[in-house]
């Protein structure tokens, strides 16, 4: 049972205050009409679902109602940190470039 740090409220809170928002950074195609059904289907349904580090969204339901990003290990439940969407984006891009 997790304790998550809400970057907006600036506090660690119990899991029950939050709602899970799924895989982070699934970008919506900018021009959906121009892509084929397969590409659209990938965006709609296909997920990384990694065993290991996972960039995921949570929303602080009982608090600030903001979505934010957590990097969590799905095998060990270790948490690397949580950030606002904007800050996380930078780290994520840097990480993606590195690998």
């Amino acid at each position, binding site marked *: 049972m*997790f304790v998550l740090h809400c970057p907006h409220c600036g506090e660690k809170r119990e899991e029950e205050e939050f709602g899970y928002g799924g895989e982070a950074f699934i970008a919506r195609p900018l021009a*959906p*009409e121009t892509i084929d059904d397969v590409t*659209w289907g990938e965006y*709609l349904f296909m997920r990384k679902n990694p065993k290991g580090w996972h960039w995921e969204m949570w*929303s602080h339901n009982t608090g600030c*109602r903001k*979505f934010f990003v957590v990097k969590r290990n799905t095998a060990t*439940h270790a948490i690397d940190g949580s950030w606002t969407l904007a800050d996380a984006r930078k780290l994520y891009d840097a990480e993606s470039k590195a690998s």
Partner: protein
Amino acid sequence: MSSHRIQNPFARIDTSRPLSFTFDGQSFGGFAGDTLASALLAHGHRMLARSFKYGRPRGIVGAGAEEPNALVQLEAGPLTIPNVKATQVELYDGLSACRTTGWPSLAYDAKSIGGHFSRFMPAGFYYKTFKWPAALWPRVEPIIRHAAGYGSAPVDPDPEQYDHQHHHADVLVVGAGASGLLAALGAGRAGLHVILVDEQNEPGGWLLSAPHAVIGGQTASDWLKTTIGELKSLPNVRILARTCAFALHDMNMIQAVEQLHDHVAPSARPAGERRQRLHRIRAGRVVLASGAIERPLVYGNNDLPGILTAAALTTYLNRYAVAVGKRVLLLTSNDHVYQGACDLAKAGCSVVLADTRSTINPAWEKRARAAGVDVMAGYGIAEAHGGRAVKGAHLVRLHPERIAVAGNGPFIDCDALGSSGGLSPTVHLYCHDGGRPVWDEKRLAFVAPATGRAKAGIYVVGAASGEFGLQNALAQTCLTTAELLATFDKASAIATLNVRTDEPDLQPARRIFRLPDGKPEGHGKKAFVDYQNDVAASDIHLAVRENYRSIEHIKRYTALGFGTDQGKLSNVNGFAIAADALGKSIPEVGTTTYRPAYSPVTFGTLAGAHAADTFEPRRYTAMHSCHVARQAEFEPVGQWLRPWYFPTGGEDLHAAVRRECLAARRSVAMMDASTLGKIDIRGRDVREFLNRVYANAWTQLAPGKCRYGLMLDENGMVFDDGVTACIADDHFLMTTTTGGAARVLTWLEKWHQTEWPELDVYMTSVTDHWATAAVVGPKSRQVLAKLCTDIDLSPAAFKFMDWREATVAGVAARVFRISFSGELAFEVNVDASYGHHVWEALMAAGREFGITPYGTETMHVLRAEKGFIIAGQDTDGSMTPFDLDMAWAVSMKKPFSFIGKRSFARSDTAKSDRKQLVGLLTDDPQVILTEGAQMIETSNTAPPVPMFGHVTSSYFSPELGRSIALAVVRDGIHRRSEDGVKAGRDIMYAWAGGKAHKVRIVSAVFIDPQGARQNV
């Protein structure tokens, strides 16, 4: 004094407070401080149970949570508790308990007949039998089921209450034995917020069984007094007795259950108190001081009543002043039993101590002989003798190295037999969230290393970490506590504490689990490993023979450790015997997974306050009391309770709905629409935002106007709908379905925050702020006119789909001229604080017109007559706007590709013959179709019958004097009679519960297709 009770000033019973109780109807006496087990043993009461599979006589084996046999049914009626361990039942006056096994009686158990054929019922018995003929198993199964099970569940609702309490502590110490107390003292003196829990009725742990032990010059009992005294004096330390930490979850969330009632006589339980409380403790650090449990040795007939663990014999003697037997035979592989042996001898028992080691600890031998114990080195037990109680045991001389019989030994007769195969650390919590215990070959135990999980904030001290000697345990506790305190940048104030004891240094134990009897496994008397599941050593060997070689397979094939004791006594023996059978080392075999609960915990405790009328929220509108006063029947819709219908004079649903419908169509009726979700949306980009989240267009809608909108998921399917009003150019008020409100707000926020943060728009829920009364019917304008004089209500000035600021019944209101019924209608929205006032004012104003309150059922009929959908009833997540024949509510021209649009183009979604929403008319106008009836093409119904859709909504329309229905039908739109389809295609059958009704497929709009009535 009962036969086995002795004088013992150190014992924790209060002989000045005698108590009486009954077991299986027979009356006994005991004392405050007794457990049911100690009190029964004090009377020499041995046999309490019959075994699960073979019906063998069984008695008390342990003295606490590890007890496998003595499961009793405590009390009767609503307060009854099944399967409590007699060793954990604190005695109170008038307590009544019964056995849970043994049918028809303990003395004669039907299963014991099977027992005689036990060799034909090995592990896996059922898998190999009752397979043929197929009809056999269904007849055998009920018999098997009735033979299984221990206690009986209550049959009455639970009269007692439970709750939860949430804690956030710096340090949680689990276990208040010597080590736990010391660790708590260390953390407490350092000023940390400490919680110390122990499942027993008082702190002390093993020290309560070893009162003569010496710690730093004090006797154990004095040391306990001073230590507990100081802890109690510290405001930052909280001690919870009778509190079992039963689970450890991620990030050190510990669940612990506190027993507040069960030890008190029902008549004396304080009213308003809880029976049990779940403490949810989020701890910065956890100290596991959960100790160790002595495991018995495995030999023939080792399950006879009167055979206990040596530790239990010691505990009964020292803690409860009970000498379980007068002639005691002890069997050990280690030093731990010697103190107990001395104490038993000093208490006047004749004690023979057989040590499986050929060379034993001279210091202990000296003390034992001095105390009068007859010590025999290098002996084991081949098999115990006795029927309903142990009478003696046949000893054999053991080979000093190999696990083999080296020669014959004497027959020792005894009335109590205790064995010790060493201590098994209580590592359960260490493992609940993924930790693994480590096999320590020197200590012959799976231990939880003291700082093995320090990174996770979990520390282990004392016996739990494998420190079995008291002095070592305490010294190690001091060290480990200091390490823990360092992580808080605190120095330890117990580092220099004197913890010297008077025990001799420990001599290594002998590595022995299953004692040899000179015969191959399975040939001699059954030697039990897991008493509760009747798992014998031979069953483990059989499992291995049949290739159930993984320890998990062995567990599952034999049921080893499956019981309510979760293998506290049996698991390690089982692992070791398996290793032997597999020819592997114990660490290679490993352990099974430790899972919560450490000790069983009631469902009531888990549920806490979430029971009865606080099980889950019920949401009410500001007008709720108005409806209650009018005897409304209510319907749960999402979290809300909404009026379903308003029966008067004994009406049933149909009569009431008929009356309510006609009132709405012919004169005036009123409904509470407050539960609809309302979201205030404001910002420069609000129109663009709506364009993206709705299927239709919002660019043109002028202030003062409203529009209906369909909300789709990205898959193109309708998931919510509602009317949205333009308040100002940059300001809209959106309404959602009752059930969808929260989901929609989160959905909108998610899109805004994650995809389109650049859009200038804010959303705020105002659902609870507004109370809404829908005044519906031809006379609604007249009613409203009486209460609303500051705006022009005339059709010309206040058009359909307009809204206005106005004053209604003296209250500022937003009046929407929208209609979910197709009638002239006004939705009056006011500050909910005035909801009650305005509802009553409208009722009063409408009285002259016979204004009629109506509920959700009538609302459904009225909208169905108009072919308006209910999202969630006429849609099921697989309907596009086109499937709903609502192309008019989709704007494909909008520049931005709104949510869901792209999905329309996929091959399956683009098909023209998808299931589509249509109306149905039955041949017989009186027949009301079943909602959920399936649409088929022929009246011939020999399965499999092709299905083309189903009836989503079906009612009797009082207005039309006939039944109507909505359905989704494959290619339905092209089957509608109106559209002159190929003869016959409009005729189908609606099939439900074996009946097929002929129906004609028509437009979904049954009344006033031009919408004239709502425009008057």
